């Protein structure tokens, strides 16, 4: 490190250069080399750690840490079950045997029995599973460690095909698209009422959205716990929940009112987008539950989602109460909010993993948060009727209550 002083000089020089925009003229190594230098040293450090470091001592002292996550269990047809496994741990893991319902069973992997870090396998088990009953799978590794997972209700997985794509699309239409469009029909009503009542419904929208956002966030946290360790469920959640409002905000900067609030249409667009992302997560849940037989247990779930989602249409049209808008863009807003339900149902019905669900739910929560911020700004600029004004506060609380009450239909 004899040239340490020279390095300091260079750093100072670079600062000067930044101000004067003439850095290229300075003597010394080029900037890219200074950028890459630490990386080269880092590589050397890593080499030294693995070559000479004390890691070997710990390797000898402790058995390998094995971590397998059973991501999905599904039943393509009678007498066959499939198990998707991911190695989210630091070490390779070898699956030696597999037991279903406390019986060691013949099976086959779509690759080596040893699963490397972040690798994934699908195991085919010819097992006479029983429609409508629970089944439990245990993987036994070569060191005798076990990993288990189960399904509560076994049912034949829908094959990818026109019939099931159509069925899931229809399901998405019923629980996502149509209720939202139905909710849009409140627009003429909103146009007839006084300004303060429009504000009331705007505040109600805030309540609806806060509820949706918190709900999505909690669900994301729950599913994140099931994401294989290396894929960092919490990390996915943060990226979705924080990244989405940042991105939406950055995109939305282009068109704003002079006072800094979003234009009404833009606000409605944001609401629709946020609800759409939220509904994508909802679609995932519905598709996955349907495919695993859960939703088939009660049509009331579909009814619950349907009623619940009608309020989302109201949220979209509330900012447009004083705007003139033709039918086409209005319908487009409704579709933006509703159609993701169908996409979600497809993904959830034919393949879904905790990784995807966590990310989508977090994105939904982040989008909702962004809209709530926009709406709060909107109210903040109107001193005479802020969110804490009695009527508006009542609206917000009513929004929460409406979500809570319609949610009862879903939670049964």
């Amino acid at each position: 490190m004899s040239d340490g002083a020279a390095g300091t000089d260079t750093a100072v020089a670079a600062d000067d250069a930044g101000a004067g925009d003439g850095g290229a003229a300075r003597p010394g190594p080029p900037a890219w080399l200074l950028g890459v230098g630490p990386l080269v040293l880092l590589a050397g450090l890593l080499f030294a750690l693995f070559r000479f470091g004390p890691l070997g001592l710990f390797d000898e002292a402790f058995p390998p840490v094995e971590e397998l996550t059973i991501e999905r269990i599904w039943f393509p047809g009678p007498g066959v079950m499939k198990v998707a496994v991911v190695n989210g741990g630091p070490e390779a893991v070898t699956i030696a045997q597999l037991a279903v319902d406390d019986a060691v069973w013949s099976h086959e992997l779509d690759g080596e029995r040893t699963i490397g870090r972040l690798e994934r396998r699908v195991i085919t088990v010819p097992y006479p599973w029983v429609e409508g009953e629970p089944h439990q799978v245990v993987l036994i590794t070569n060191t005798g460690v076990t990993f288990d997972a189960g399904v509560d209700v076994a049912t034949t997985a829908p094959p990818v095909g026109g019939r099931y794509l159509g069925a899931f699309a229809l399901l998405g239409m019923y629980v996502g698209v149509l209720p939202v469009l139905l909710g849009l029909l409140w627009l003429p009503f909103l146009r007839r009422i006084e300004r303060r009542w429009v504000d009331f419904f705007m505040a109600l929208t805030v309540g609806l959205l806060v509820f949706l956002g918190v709900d999505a966030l909690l669900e994301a946290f729950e599913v994140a716990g099931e994401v294989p360790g290396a894929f960092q469920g919490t990390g996915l959640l943060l990226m979705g929940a924080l990244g989405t409002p940042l991105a939406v905000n950055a995109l939305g900067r282009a068109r704003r009112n002079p006072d800094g609030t979003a234009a009404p249409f833009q606000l409605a667009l944001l609401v629709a987008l946020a609800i759409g992302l939220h509904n994508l997560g909802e679609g995932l849940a519905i598709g996955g539950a349907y495919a695993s037989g859960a939703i088939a247990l009660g049509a009331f779930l579909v009814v619950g989602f349907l009623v619940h989602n009608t309020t989302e249409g109201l949220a979209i049209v509330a900012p447009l109460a004083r705007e003139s808008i033709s039918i086409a863009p209005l319908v487009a807003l409704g579709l933006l909010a509703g159609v993701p339900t169908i996409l979600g149902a497809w993904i959830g019905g034919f393949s879904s993993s905790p990784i995807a669900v966590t990310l989508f739910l977090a994105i939904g929560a982040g989008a909702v948060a962004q809209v709530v911020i926009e709406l709060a700004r909107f109210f903040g600029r109107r001193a005479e009727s802020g969110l804490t004004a009695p009527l508006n506060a009542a609206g917000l609380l009513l929004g929460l209550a409406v979500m809570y009450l319609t949610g009862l239909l879903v939670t049964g």
Partner: protein
Amino acid sequence: MSDKSGDRGMSRRNLLRAGAVGAAGVAVGGAARALQQGASPEQLQGAAQLVSSHGHVASNDAVGDIQPGGFDPTAFLTDFDYGRVSTLADGRTLREYDMVAIDEDIEVAPGVWFPAWTYNGQVPGPTIRCTEGDRLRVNFRNAGSHPHTIHFHGTHPAEADGVFEIVEPGGSYTYEFDAEPFGLHLYHCHAIPLKRHIHKGLYGTFIVDPPGGREPARELVMVMNGFDTNFDGSNEIYAVNTVGFHYQRHPIKLALNELVRVYLVNLTEFDLINSLHMHGNMFRLYRTGTDLERSELTDTVTLCQGERAVLEFSYRFPGRFMFHAHQSEFAELGWMAMFDVSGEEAPVV
């Protein structure tokens, strides 16, 4: 792990969970490129199997086979250790045995390894055999990492009981006693914690023949045991003679009308009882083997931990006959086996 929501209805959260985890989707093209080959015919030769409507061969069996060259359950069946024989001054027979406690990884099902504590590197330990009245000298050396002993069942002085004379790693001890009474006994480590020392594999069969012996027969040693491979207090794998499904995959060959005598010992840990049920036949049961009169004629015997029995039978019909624990769970987790009775009469002994 599984969320037993049952009839409680399904919350939105559970619904999401179901969508994410318990879920069913479909593997793209999975149903189409369904597994055709299944297990090889050799692997399935003894297995209970069925063919699903998709043409898959389903079987309640392990995949693969144990490594060759290690412990061989088939050889173990008939491997009796009579010790080093000499004659004492009073004319009695002295039998000397060397026993070493060794830490050793053993294969308890194909590809599944268990960090065992063993006598002489094997689980179960060697089958010690002698005749009533013989003098036994067992030289025990502890080459393992924990204190161990050998506790023999039967009648003997206190200092040969293997309970209070704990042998530390690197230490040794000699047990000396007379073999009595005749019957089917066992031996195991009696160091504490007892449950762990037994479950880890420190046990074996101890046969004391009656003076004059028993009727000539094809004799087999079967130790019912189990292995808690993930150390959660219940067994993942059950077996006779350690390797789950071994005699299902490698049926024990018997001859027609041949007299067969099974020395059956229960050394299953964590489960109170174990059992043996034989198909297509009945056996004469001699409880503990300490009497030459049969106790009953049956096809199922149930033994508590540490209990044992001698079974005698001969097959009148050729073919494959299962024998297994009548606890279905144990059977399906490995304690499932086969006799393969040939059409040939046994040569006269």
